[in-house]
């Protein structure tokens, strides 16, 4: 777990994080504090029909000017541009997103051209903005992506079939309203898979070559919360204490990752998702323990710390043995949560593994894995996970 004197980092988490049951109802005050007069809600077509949505709209009161509810899973450049047009027509000066990662990323995307002019694709790049984007209050309805505190928005160019990453300090949401009541409606399967996305953010932020101590602290606590509260929330989706702790876990795991990187697990999960449509959380959940075992000899002391956070009694164990126990503990957690254990169970054909192994090499995350990867090494991990 040690660092050497070459350690140098910047840690950013400028988001005001507001937590508590019912805090979504404070959205009006938050808009006022940001100097907003005309707020637009960004959400999807399912959420817009719910009471959760209506409460937020009501809480905005006179500040509310309209809603853009055309966000779809895996949001796209065309959706963001359509949302921007709507916001321009309504003369919007503050954005409120209600939803999961795709909705929050859409709002991050809209915030860019709404401030700078033009279309979203004009800002394809890294840290390109020179001033803060339009203020954005994020209200997550899932506990997984951590997008409410991260500096990236992943938006697909569906026409060109490529992924655009808008990574910019100035699109980190200004406020995250973490309200456990907003996540009670999440079905068990989604609850579990999004939680494992958060778990993967925490573990990967620790084993990446770019890890930093502040992220370690966030990640270790996120791991501790997920292992302790996921079983409860799976048993009773209305357990508001557990729902709340899961929201906190996803948020701090996101903050950890946003300041470090991810590695092998995400690189493979992105490729499995891109090629065979396996949902991000499910792919991460299946691949995470295999990623740990594969990387074990590169950083056993990190996995020993992760094992401890997972509640494993590692006294008297070597770091390697403790690391193996970390993988076991994750398997136990995902089995209990009813998540698939093998890639073969989620529609990935065995003859597709080589293609995934090749694809993952061109994923940016792979570079920051603690062990250097190539297609053959990727294939070893994938075969284990199949």
């Amino acid at each position, binding site marked *: 777990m040690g660092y050497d004197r070459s350690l140098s980092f910047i840690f950013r988490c400028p988001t005001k994080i507001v937590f508590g049951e019912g805090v979504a109802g404070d959205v009006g005050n938050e808009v006022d504090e940001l100097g907003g007069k005309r707020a637009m809600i960004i959400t999807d077509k399912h959420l817009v029909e719910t009471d959760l949505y209506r409460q937020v709209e009501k809480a905005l009161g006179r500040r509310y000017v309209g809603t853009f509810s055309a966000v779809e899973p895996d949001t796209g450049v065309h959706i963001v541009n359509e949302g921007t047009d709507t916001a321009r027509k309504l003369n919007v000066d503050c954005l409120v997103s209600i939803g999961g990662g795709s909705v929050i990323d859409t709002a991050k995307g809209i915030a860019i051209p709404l401030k700078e002019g033009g279309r979203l694709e004009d800002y394809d790049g*890294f*840290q390109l903005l020179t001033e803060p984007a339009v203020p954005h209050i994020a209200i997550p309805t899932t506990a997984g992506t951590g997008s409410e505190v991260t500096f990236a928005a992943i938006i697909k160019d569906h026409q060109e079939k*490529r992924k655009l990453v808008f990574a910019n300090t100035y699109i980190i949401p200004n406020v995250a309203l973490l309200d456990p009541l907003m996540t009670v409606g999440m079905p068990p399967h989604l609850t579990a898979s999004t939680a494992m996305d958060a778990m993967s953010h925490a573990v990967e932020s620790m084993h990446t070559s770019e890890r930093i101590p502040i992220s370690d602290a966030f990640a270790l606590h996120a791991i501790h919360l997920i292992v302790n509260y996921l079983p409860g929330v799976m048993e009773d989706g209305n357990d508001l204490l557990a729902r709340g702790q899961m929201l906190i876990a996803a948020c701090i795991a996101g903050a950890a990752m946003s300041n470090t990187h991810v590695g092998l697990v995400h690189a493979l999960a992105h490729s499995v998702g891109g090629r065979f449509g396996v949902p991000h959380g499910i792919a991460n959940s299946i691949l995470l323990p295999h990623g740990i075992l594969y990387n074990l000899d590169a950083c056993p002391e990190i996995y020993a710390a992760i094992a401890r956070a997972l509640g494993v009694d590692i006294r008297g164990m070597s770091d390697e043995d403790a690391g193996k126990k970390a993988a076991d503990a994750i398997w136990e957690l995902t089995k209990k949560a009813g998540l698939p254990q093998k890639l073969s169970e989620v529609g990935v054909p065995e003859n597709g593994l080589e293609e995934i192994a090749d694809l993952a090499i061109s994923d940016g*995350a792979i570079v920051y894995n603690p062990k250097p990867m190539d297609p053959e090494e990727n294939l070893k991990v994938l075969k284990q996970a199949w």
Partner: protein
Amino acid sequence: MAYKFPSEEWIAEFGKAINANEEYKRTAATWEGPVALIFNAEPAIGLDEDFCVWADLWHGECREIKKVTLEEAQKAPYVIRGSYANWKQVVQGRLGPVKGMMQGKLKLKGNLPTIMKYVKASDELVKCAAKVPSEFLDE
């Protein structure tokens, strides 16, 4: 002899160093497209206007490298911009280009996932830059 960083002489040496680097040739074998580097103007150290470099990088080779105007530089599919102090850190090997972007010290215009595929190649470019004996404007 040391070359003033940045200057036309310096970038010419940089181009030679790129073409002498086998590891760059290998890791950038599929890279296609010019990259522009912009050093923000800083009159206090003698950089009266933005200093812009155009590097035509193609399949592991530097086909051409030259000083261009800001207008020309901005036409490149990939443009990386930063202050003199941050570029200096990069060529001295104290700041990785991707880490520099993560930290907001360098700004990239262009498709990030594409750049990320070539992180190793970008590290090699930095090594090439470090090989050029440099005389820094602020020292």
